[in-house]
C-alpha cells in the first residue's frame, strides 16, 4: 500500500468532468510528478487531495485517513502540505510571520497562556521561531526575513510559498508548478531544494511541472493527465516512450484518434490496473 492512494476519482463542475476516474499511487519518499497540458485537471486533483474540492466519486486515502470529505485544515493536520500554483501568501505579513503561521498546529498553548504570554507561550513561540529560522536557512531566504511578502519578486515569493509548506513539517508535500515563471538559475535552485527536501527531511513530494526536462530528471514516477483522464503512468523512461503521451503533447496521432472516447477509456483503465501492480 502506497502512502497516498487515489482511486477512481471523478470531479464534476456543473456537468463537466474536470477529472474522470483518475487513479494514482504515491509511495513514501518518492518524487512523483503529474504532467499534462493546461486545463488537464492537475490543480483540481491537488485541490481534491488537500480538501479544497471534494471528489464527486472515488476515494483518496492518505495512510489511515480518508480525505474525500475532509476540510483543508484537517488534511493539513494529517501531514499534507501544499504550495499553491497562484501564490496564496499573506502578502501584508513578513516572511517570518508567513512561516510562523505554518507552525500553527505545532504550537500548542491555550488562549489564556497566550494572553499572559510570558512563560509557556513565550518559550513555545521561541522554539518555533527557531524552527522557522532553520527553514529560512534551508531555503536561503535570509535576506528577506523582515520584508513584507507582497514586496518581494515573483521568484522569491514562489520560494516563500514552498518554504511555508515545508515549515508545516509535512510527510507529503504537494507542489503546484513551483518553478513557473522562474529564470533558469532560480529553477536550478528550486530543483536542488526539492531534491534536498526529499533527501534530508524524508518528505514525499508530488510535483506538478511543465518543464519536462526537470520532470524526467528528478521524478521516480510520472503520471500524465489529459482532459481529466489519466492517460499514462510509470517511470520517466516508460512515460516518455508511451505513444499516448507523445500524442497528447505533440497532437500527432501515432495510431488511434485521441478524442475517441472508447480508446481513451480503454487506455486509462489499462493504466489504472498497471499502476496498481507497480505500486
Amino acid at each position: 500500500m502506497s502512502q497516498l492512494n487515489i482511486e477512481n476519482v471523478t470531479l464534476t463542475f456543473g456537468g463537466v468532468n474536470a477529472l474522470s476516474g483518475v487513479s494514482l499511487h504515491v509511495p513514501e519518499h518518492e518524487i512523483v510528478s503529474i504532467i499534462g497540458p493546461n486545463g488537464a485537471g492537475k490543480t483540481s486533483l491537488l485541490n481534491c487531495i488537500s480538501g479544497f474540492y471534494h471528489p464527486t466519486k472515488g476515494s483518496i486515502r492518505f495512510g489511515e485517513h480518508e480525505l474525500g470529505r475532509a476540510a483543508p485544515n484537517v488534511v493539513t493536520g494529517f501531514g499534507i502540505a501544499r504550495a499553491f500554483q497562484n501564490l496564496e501568501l499573506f502578502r501584508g505579513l513578513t516572511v517570518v510571520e508567513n512561516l510562523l503561521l505554518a507552525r500553527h498546529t505545532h504550537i500548542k498553548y491555550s488562549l489564556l497562556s497566550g494572553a499572559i504570554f510570558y512563560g509557556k507561550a513565550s518559550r513555545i513561540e521561541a522554539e518555533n521561531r527557531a524552527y522557522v529560522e532553520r527553514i529560512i536557512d534551508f531555503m536561503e531566504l535570509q535576506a528577506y526575513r523582515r520584508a513584507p511578502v507582497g514586496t518581494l519578486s515573483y521568484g522569491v515569493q514562489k520560494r516563500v510559498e514552498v518554504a511555508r509548506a515545508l515549515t508545516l513539517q509535512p510527510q507529503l508535500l504537494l507542489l503546484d508548478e513551483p518553478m513557473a515563471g522562474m529564470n533558469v538559475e532560480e529553477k536550478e535552485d528550486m530543483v536542488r531544494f526539492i531534491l534536498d527536501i526529499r533527501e534530508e527531511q524524508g518528505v514525499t513530494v508530488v510535483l506538478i511541472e511543465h518543464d519536462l526536462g526537470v520532470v524526467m530528471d528528478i521524478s521516480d514516477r510520472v503520471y500524465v493527465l489529459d482532459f481529466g483522464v489519466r492517460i499514462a503512468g510509470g517511470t520517466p523512461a516508460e512515460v516518455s516512450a508511451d505513444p499516448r503521451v507523445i500524442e497528447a503533447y505533440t497532437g500527432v496521432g501515432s495510431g488511434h484518434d485521441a478524442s475517441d472516447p472508447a480508446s481513451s477509456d480503454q487506455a486509462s483503465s489499462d493504466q489504472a490496473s498497471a499502476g496498481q501492480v507497480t505500486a
Partner: protein
Amino acid sequence: MPATRMSQTGNYKTTYRQDQGIFANRKELIWIVLLLVALLLAPLITPRTMLRDFDLIMIFGIAALGLNITTGYTGLINMGQGAFMGVGAYAGVVAANAFNLNLFFALLFGGLSAALIGGIVGLPSLRLKHLYLAVATLAFQEIFTWGVGHSRLLAQGGAIPAPAVSIFGFRDSFLTHNLFWYYLILPILAFLVLVWRNVLRGKHGRSLIAIRDNDRAAAAMGINPATAKLTSFMLGSFYAGVAGVLLAYFSKSVVIEDYGLDVGIKVLAMTIVGGLGSIPGSVFGPAFIIGLDRVMEQVANWLGGLNLFPSGVDVATALRPLSFGLAIMLFLMFQPHGLASWWDKLRQYVTRWPYKS
C-alpha cells in the same frame, strides 16, 4: 493595514525571545512609560468637565479595541457592538446587585457573559460574509433591544441602578466622580491593551490576521476557520462587555438607550476613524468622535448666540449627527486607514529626524 511594524534601527537582538518582545526597542519602552506617567498626571491639569470626556473616551476605547479585534484584525464586520456592551452591562449590574459582587467580579462576569453571547452570535460568520454578516449582527442588535424592552426582570429597559463602588477605601462621591473613575478605567484599559498585544504576538492573534488576509491559505496552514472566527467574536465581545459594565457603573445605572444600534454604529465609526487593525487607533477614534461632539456644541452655542435661527430650533441637535456623518464620509474617502496612519507617519518622522523619509 500592516500587522507589524517594520523593524527599525536600534534593534540589537541576539535571541528569538528578544525578538518577540512587546516593544520594538528600548526607545519605545521609554516612550510608553512617559505616556503612562503623562496619563497618570493628566487629571491634575484637566478641568473636571473634560475629565468626564476622558473617562468616556477610555470606556469607548475598550469597546472600539474589541470591535477592532473582530472587524479590524479578523475582517468580520459587526454592527452589534452596542448590544454586546449591553449584554455585559446588564449581566454585570444585575449579578452585582443580586449576589453583592464587587466591581472586579461584575466586570469579569459581564465580560464573560458578552463573550458567551458573542460566540453564539458569531455562528453565522462561519457561513456569511461582508454585508450578509453585517445584517446578521444587526438582527442580533434589534433582538437584544426588543428583548430588554420586553423583560420585566430588566425593568423593560428603564434604569437599573448600579451598586456604589469603593476601592482601597476610596469612594465614588459626587465631587470626585470623574477623577475616581479616571484612575479606575485607565489601568483596566492599559491591562486590556496589554492582553491584546500579547495575544497578537502569539498563534491566536496570528491566526485571526491570517483569516482576514487569506482564508484559503489560513486553512492550508491548519487553522480551523470556525475556531478562529468564533474566538475573534468572543474576544471582541468580551471587551465590549467590560466596556458596557464600566459605562453602566460610570453612569450609575443601566438604561437600554445606552446600548442601542446608534451606539454600535458610533463604536464602528470610532474604529474606522481611528484606524482598523490599530491599537492606538482604538483610542484615537473615540477621542476624535467625542471631541467632535464637544466642538460642535461650542459651534452650536456660538451660532445660537447670533440669532440666525428662529427660537425653538436646537442647532446642536442638528449639527452633531451632521458633523458625525460628514467626518466618517471624509475619513472613508481620504484617510481610509484612519488617524493611526497619521500617527505612524509622525512616529517615523520623529525617528528619522533630521533625515527626510
